[in-house]
């Protein structure tokens, strides 16, 4: 028993955080960074969120799920490694309210909540990212090339503690998208 657990733990450490080779449950369809007049950047993205049965059941049983959108922007440099200019996370928590029979979406950064009658509408709202402010990029210089990448994943560490070891070891819980990459010039 001890050895089995040790082996499982080892296996868990080595397990990749990708979708274990399956079709990713989340998918970034489109992502774009645009600049406002005040030179601040914002993110627009369309993301497909598909919760598998395990996640949906956990949600219905009162387990809140936290999703992390991760944006990374790198500036190309000719003679050196690329410089990471933006490395930003946005966290969205989804939970079910049995009394109201409603799904609630919370933006962790602002604490703003939104209620949805069904999971479907919540997914749509979640997937439609519009005008999401991005931490300011450094003063732009003309002719700079930037590589951006966006991914979405379920945060296992945000799950209730007893679920975490199981989640680490089970492919059902490794829900994430592949990186969506695009380039833009300043």
């Amino acid at each position, binding site marked *: *028993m*001890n*050895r089995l*657990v*040790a082996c499982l*733990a*080892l296996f868990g*450490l080595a397990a990749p955080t990708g979708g274990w080779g399956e079709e990713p449950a989340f998918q970034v369809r489109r992502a774009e960074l645009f600049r406002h007049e005040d030179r601040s950047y914002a993110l627009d993205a369309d993301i497909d969120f598909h919760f598998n049965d395990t996640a949906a*059941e*956990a949600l219905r*049983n*009162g*387990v809140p799920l936290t999703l992390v959108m991760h944006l990374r922007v790198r500036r190309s440099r000719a003679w050196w490694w690329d410089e990471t200019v933006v490395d930003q996370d946005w966290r969205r928590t989804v939970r079910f*309210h*049995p*009394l*109201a*029979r*409603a799904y*609630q979406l919370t933006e962790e950064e602002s*604490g*703003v*909540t*939104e*209620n*949805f*009658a*069904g999971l*479907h*509408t919540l997914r*749509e*709202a979640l997937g439609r990212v519009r005008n999401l402010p991005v931490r300011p990029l450094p003063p732009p210089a003309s002719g700079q090339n930037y590589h951006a990448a966006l991914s979405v994943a379920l945060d296992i*560490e945000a799950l*209730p*503690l*007893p*679920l*975490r*070891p*199981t989640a*680490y070891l089970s492919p059902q819980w490794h829900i994430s998208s592949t990186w969506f990459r695009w380039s833009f010039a300043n």
Partner: protein
Amino acid sequence: MVIRKLRIRLPLGVVVVVLFAAIVASLHLMSSATQSSPQLGSMYSLLVLINSIGSILLLALVVANVYGLLRQLAKKAAGSHLTARMAFLFVLLSLAPASIVFYYSMQFLKQSIDSWFDVRIDQAMEDALELGQAALDERMRTLLRQTEQAAAKLQLTPIMEFPFHLTELRDELGEGEFTVFSRQGRIIAAGGSQLGFILPDLPDAGVLLRVKQGKSYIRLEPNQDQNLQIRAVVAIQSEDPLFLQALYPVPLRISQLAGTVEAAFVHYKELGFLRSSLKHTFILTLSLVLLLSLLAAIWVAFVSIRRIVAPVRRLAQGTRAVAEGRYGHRLAVRAKDELGFLVESFNTMTERLAQASEEARESRIEVERQRAYLETVLSSLSSGVLSFDHESRLLTANRAVDDILHIPALDYLGFPISQLKAEHPYLGEPVDRIERWLNKGSGTWQDEISFAGPDGRQELYCHGTTLFNGGGEKVGAVVVFDDVTALILAQRQAAWSEVARRLAHEIKNPLTPIQLSAERLHHKLTSRLDARDAEVLDRSTRTIVQQVEALKSMVNAFAEYAKSSAIQLKRIALATIVEEVVALYPPQSGLRFEIQAETDLPDISADPIQLRQILHNLIKNAQEALTPPIQGNMWFILNRATEQGKAFLQLTVRDDGPGIPKDQADRIFEPYVTTKTKGTGLGLAIVKKIIEEHGGSIRMENGHLQGAGFVIRFPIPETDIRAEATSGGSGVSS
């Protein structure tokens, strides 16, 4: 475990203590995290990781130790069996109770987690929630009706007056906020308690779709402050459809109650959902605790056992070294305990052993030296020395025994003396005599033993002593004997020389006056006597003169024998001398001669005159032995002979006469020993004397059927110097 740790010294002790502290702290944190402590919750995965890595490291350590131990066992290294046994015992002792505790803890854990869940509680939770919903549903229905009525009113009102109506509605109902918006989500009018602070939040697209189809929407939902509110959306029928949304806050108390019920329900539901995960997590934590503790305990056990066994191992190695005879091995004393004392005692013991061994070695060398010395002394002795054990078996014999008895005495060590007699029959007499003395077995004895050896008669002078050990017990005997043949011979020869000298002196002197007196008597009286008397006188005086002459010649022969002759050595060929001498004897002499000589015979160093004398004496001896009418034969055989590494020129002289009787054979070379009626009896004595003066030897030929045979040997000189030395030596012996 604590005692064990204390016994281990720095720095390993510190390492172990730190390791254990780290493990215990990590396990404690993990355990606390499992009990849903919020601060540690976020560290849980990290802690599991750390503990897993710790377990793997410890496992690797234990595996390395076990592997090392197995290798030592395979090599049969000292102390490995003890280590293995102690380690096995320790693992068994730690594993057995830990496993039992683990098993029952798991059972208890599963049962207690299962006991949290009860069908009745489950039902009560469901019912409580339903009750809350039912209570709120009633309220919602009322509010929906009111909203629909308000919408109906607004339907008849121009759009411009909407704000006014909405405020009126708000005042009428006393609570809630109202918004009219278009299908595109544009807000037409709004009124309510919170208006002006934030933008009214609009329903999602799904709701609008439902309402557009003519269905009113009413829903309970949590607001930003996690209080409940009721949202109602109804359509305002007109050409361009508008929608009225009303948000009614649920009274605070009811909201709180409902919130509590919901929170409990959610928590209970979540627990139910996480039931198996909870078990797994607890089991994981428990297993990690057990695994870490066990592995750490086993590792520390290995280290401690190694330390405990180390002196035993060193002792075993030391013992092995001592067994192999290496006494110089010293063990370092590292502890002041019983094992340290043991090691110290071992060192003392090996030191004493080394001393004893060194002493034994020295005394062995001394004994060996003494023995070698004794052997040298014995082998240098010209006397033969034999020693016997108490059963008369030969124990030692020196080299002189071989020379005297003509036997390889060393081949007979361990055999009874009678064995000598069986294999060398000529030793019958001396062996019998010695055996008799040995069997008599007490005190010291001496004896003169005479026997016929292969080279002629030998005289032994023996001394014997019985040997006793310290307790007076007989342990054997030692016999010392000398070959006194030559001595006795020389004594006899000296006696004869003395006799001869005296005879010559005492007898020869009166002979001349006797002869002269007789001749004078004859001369004086012949003329005076008558013929008859003269005849008597003449005959008598002649007889006297003749006998005196005979006496004279006899005395001269004696004188010749007695006088030490002056030898003139020359290199000569013996064969030539033999031929010359033989040529002097014509066939009328009654003898026929035959000479057989090997070719290339070496010269010898000798006096030719004396050699001729020898040959004449021998021929005369043969002649005298013959009865006159019978013709005799004589053979001279010359060849080379080698005995005991010495080369000789051998002359064998044989005749076919009557030979020499056995009883006289031993003393034939002594003066006046003769078998003949004629002669002085000195012929062979003179021959022997001359030959010995030349360093040669003469003996009777054994195994001869008819006639007499003599074997004469002359040494072959290697150089002239050597020849002179030989002649000098022979001078002494004469």
